């Protein structure tokens, strides 16, 4: 299996740092080359980093409730800038308030994200899905 590069970061004006540091440790241990942009990352910074490093996936986090505003348009921006096959994952407390998980998932899938996770997701579960999605992507090439 080739070593994939993945880009991590917390989008927008969000400064929740703890989960981000844990994701970095987890995916590094899982064998990925992790480019961690930390907190308060703009859409363009995600895309710049993905282009520079040839990343296979961008994992976007949002914990503070502004995800609906911050995450919209990332897929289009990726396409505009030539990232036409990149995987986009998003996870966290994505909207303001305690919302129906299924409705939130639909909303973000419609925005063009490949996977949408609640804050409580087990990281092992995410790792399995990421491996499958990357394998499918590699085969399609």
């Amino acid at each position, binding site marked *: 299996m080739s070593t994939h590069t993945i880009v991590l970061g917390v989008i927008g004006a*969000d*400064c929740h740092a703890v989960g981000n540091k844990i994701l970095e440790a987890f995916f590094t241990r899982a064998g990925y080359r992790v480019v961690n942009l930390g907190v308060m990352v703009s859409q363009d910074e995600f895309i710049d980093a993905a282009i520079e490093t040839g990343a296979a996936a961008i994992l976007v986090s949002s914990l*503070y409730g*502004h995800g609906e*505003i911050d995450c919209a348009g990332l897929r289009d921006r990726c396409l505009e800038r030539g990232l036409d096959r990149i995987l986009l994952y998003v996870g966290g407390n994505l909207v303001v*308030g305690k919302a129906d998980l299924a409705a939130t998932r639909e909303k973000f899938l419609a925005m063009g994200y490949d996977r949408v996770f609640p804050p*409580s997701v087990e990281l092992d579960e995410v790792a399995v899905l990421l491996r499958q999605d990357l394998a499918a992507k590699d085969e399609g090439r």
Partner: protein
Amino acid sequence: MDFENKRIPDERFDALRPEVLGAWPTGREVDFDEGVAFHHALPEDKRFPVALDRADAERRVLLQPRAGVALLEEHIALLQLLAQEADVLPTTIDAYTRQNRYEEAQKGIDKSRQAGHSLLNGFPAVNHGLGACREIIERVPKPVQVRHGTPDARLLAELTLAAGFTSYEGGGISYNIPYTKKVPLQKSIEDWQYVDRLVGRYEAAGVRINREPFGPLSGTLVPPFMSHAIAIIEGLLALEQGVRSLTLGYGQAGNLMQDVAAIHSLRQLARQWFEAEGYGDYQLSTVFHQWMGGFPENESKAFAVITWGGAVAALAGATKVIVKTPHEASGIPTGEANLQGVMATSQITSMLVDQQASLVALVQPEIERIKREVNTVLRAVKTAGEGDWAKGAVRAFAAGILDVPFAPSVHNKGKLLPVRDNEGAIRLFDFGAVPLDMDTRAFHAAKVKERAIAEGREPCFQMVIDDIYSISKGRLVGRPR
């Protein structure tokens, strides 16, 4: 002007002011003298420092929720609802405003209007302007504080204080290190010296405004001595600028003895250091934050965490407790959920507030330990600054003498690594560059080892991660699964 812990001269402050007020059009609405007159006319029961004083005198714990939504009418309605049970109220500011991104805040306001509900995580006070902020004070029956996370909070302070807010949270360290990535510490400390000087000017005009450094920092396994050292430095910086009402904060760690000792030692250390540095004539209170880390999703379990925080706040004798909600795991709560958190806390604090005395003797060893750690660190900060606390703070972070676990700032070393001991108290797994003495190090190492043996594993980073998630998964100590 040199960067130092010195009161900003009037001419310097007046020279800075036009630029501060010019950062967004609403800044033009600020009229200091009119603000002073409004404050003088405020009834006592809308004044934060009065409420704090009375609570300490009557040995009551004030209850304060967090709350803020995008639109004015909804925000006032929310505060009026919470006023049913809360003693003092907040206006929590949205995350765009905290980063001075007023255009994005405006987008959030507009989209919230279209959506019919708030898409922002707080109240964008700068965009709404002075009139709207004034309306909050006029229509809400209790004292209201600005709560945020803003490294450059000068314009927000000018607007909200002129509007009649009587308490302002934050500080040059506590609203930088846990809340931003790149803002230089010197810049945020200077900007907060401005805020503190503004509060000092109100004080000189006979208007007392309470200031509250943000105690919990990253809210993630922060050892009491580190948050205490930072709170005391921010207190010293504020006193120098003329602030006279200070509330120092601490975030619940989870172990009863450590948490009670933390509140006691915080008061004692603050008085000791403020006096040693030549400050008298100030009003000091404390605030205890209910658990700031991850919460269980299940609401009944969340209530247990909330009430345990309320219990410890009362047993520790904190002046005020910041209340969480049963929706904490999912982010911003509804008004009703928020009110439920306050009610649960109200019940437990009033049941326990008379039981403080018997605990003090029991926690004495822990009090002494925290004091020793704080004194060691503060002496090192003072030395680093060659006697100056502002310079000392900047140099101490650069050197790792001050180090906040799991903070996002690049100006924070992040080498200090905490872990729970076998009883759940926060100890140190890696001391980083924090200059603790050998006995203290030996104590921490022994406590961590005790747990490691009990769990049959070496102390490791996984143990720390387990501790970060443990409360959300139903325990205090992150035992191996």
